[in-house]
């Protein structure tokens, strides 16, 4: 058979699937498998939300009893919960601000300048993301303990026993690399000629930065800040090592589930989930609306 005898339609049929099994696989098995996998990802979220409307029998919200709005009407009604939630929000805000500033400066440096040691810095910034959280937490705790012991004691600020400050230090640390990666991704398509044009029009570097560069990279910085905020508010593993007697919301949950599983855990979890989803959906809608307008 020569290539001339092969009809174009036949090649397309081969490329598109050909046999009966492949067609079945393509049209049916792959979509169904994907739907099942997405279901697997959604189930725990659905459980969390559904069980936030449960009225648990006894102290553990593990078995469905009957529908109730009690949890949603009294979302903070459990000793320790409001304080721990407030701590989580405070840590998330502060660590986001610090990590976003530090990480954005690094991102600017790495994308806009070529200098000696850039590769090494890139590798160094990758390391915290490649280290398991349990190791990050453990190593920070060893440093904090060491500040209270000889030979460091008295020579550096004492960070042991661990508290709010040490949680904040840890959250800024693990957030920096993620901010850098996000900012770098958004900066890589930046057109430097816009800044040259501003300079040609007489703007000094300071004015150029605030009037041209910053507005253009702002969406990237916001994306990085959002990521940092959500990583901070969710973190359990690292925080568990450096929290001492201070409770963030996940730490409080971890402590309380040994004796009870209050419905409020599901309510706050659902609340955070819905706020986050609402935020992402609305920013996407706004972006779409703006791009249609402009």
């Amino acid at each position, binding site marked *: 058979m020569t290539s001339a005898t092969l009809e174009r339609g036949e090649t397309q049929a081969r490329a598109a699937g050909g046999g009966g099994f492949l067609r079945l696989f393509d049209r049916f098995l792959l979509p169904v498998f*994907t739907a099942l996998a997405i279901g697997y990802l959604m189930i725990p979220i659905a459980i969390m939300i559904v069980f936030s409307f449960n009225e648990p029998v006894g102290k553990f919200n593990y078995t*469905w009893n009957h529908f109730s709005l009690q949890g949603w009407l009294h979302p903070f009604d459990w000793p320790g919960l409001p304080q721990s939630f407030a701590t989580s929000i405070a840590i998330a805000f502060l660590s986001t601000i610090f990590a976003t500033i530090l990480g954005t400066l690094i991102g600017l440096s790495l994308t806009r*300048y070529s200098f000696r040691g850039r590769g090494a810095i890139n590798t160094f*910034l990758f390391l915290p993301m490649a*280290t398991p959280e349990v*190791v990050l937490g*453990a190593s920070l705790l060893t440093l904090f303990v060491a500040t209270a012991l000889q030979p460091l004691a008295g020579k550096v600020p004492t960070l042991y026993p661990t508290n709010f400050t040490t949680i904040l230090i840890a959250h800024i640390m693990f957030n920096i690399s993620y901010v850098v990666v996000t900012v770098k991704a958004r900066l890589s398509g930046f057109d430097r000629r816009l800044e040259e044009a501003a300079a040609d029009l007489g703007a000094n570097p300071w004015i150029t930065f605030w009037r041209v560069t910053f507005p253009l990279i702002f969406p990237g910085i916001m994306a990085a800040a959002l990521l940092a905020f959500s990583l901070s508010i969710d973190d359990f593993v690292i925080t568990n090592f450096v929290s001492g007697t201070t409770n963030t919301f996940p730490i409080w949950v971890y402590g309380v589930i040994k004796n009870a599983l209050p419905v409020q855990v599901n309510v706050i979890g659902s609340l955070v989930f819905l706020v986050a*989803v609402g935020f992402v959906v609305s920013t996407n809608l706004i972006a779409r609306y703006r791009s249609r307008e402009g």
Partner: protein
Amino acid sequence: MAATTLPARASGPSLMARISRATPYLLLLPGVAYLVVFYAVPSFQMFLYSISTGNVDSGYQANAGLANYATALQLYTRQIWNSILYGGLATILTLLIGFPVAYTVAFRGGRYKNLILFLVIAPFFTSFLIRTISWKILLGDEGPLLGTLKHTLGILPADFSLTGTPIAQLFGITYNFLPFMILPLYVALEKIDPRLLEAAGDLYANRVASFRRITVPLALPGIFAGTLLTFIPAMGDYVNAELLGNPTTQMLGNVIQRKLLVQNDFPVGAALSFILMGGILVAVFVYARLLGTEQLTG
């Protein structure tokens, strides 16, 4: 405004040049210094403790040599194996589940592409801990899944239980890290030019051959990234073992956590952390060699 800039520019190119040469380093300085103090120094401190003897009250002396490592390897062989076993199996499972999903979204997603991707990252909007608790609710003896299968449908015997089993733990870990596998796979598959697959068809490659010879090789960077993003946290995980497993399924992370937070045994805890880190580095290195580093950077 222009007037104020002129004197600055005229004040000498050498000063401006020096400032602009220093700019990248000045921008780096605060953030990198922070990571040196709170990432690099703690790692070194942990190394010091891993070769030390002593306790929190009397302080530590770096005189133990490798004794802590020997103790750690001897006493916690089982937990080390569990980390490799559960971390490895969960990684394989996420790849087996994640690849068809990423493939479907990338090539057949159509207008649902963004919606499906959004659903894939939706778990990130909930706390890792609460998601794991949800698994515990779901898999509970009288929970929504087993309760239905046992009593309503009568498929399973009444004493069937998943609570505290290796299966529950494995599916919890797989669940928690599945999005980390799907996203990089999707990014790699999405980049594949469909014309390459058409060309393969024109050259008489059947679907299986073009999948094996084109799709998989081009997806390798995604497979590599996804595997690492899953394997590293899965190896170090201890929450799933704690909430879904039982004492015999505990992993390295559980011991590290107990050593440092409960028993205050810093030397052995530090040695175990380094064993975990070292194991991961070796695994990453071997894996990169097996897949071929040239293909990964390309």
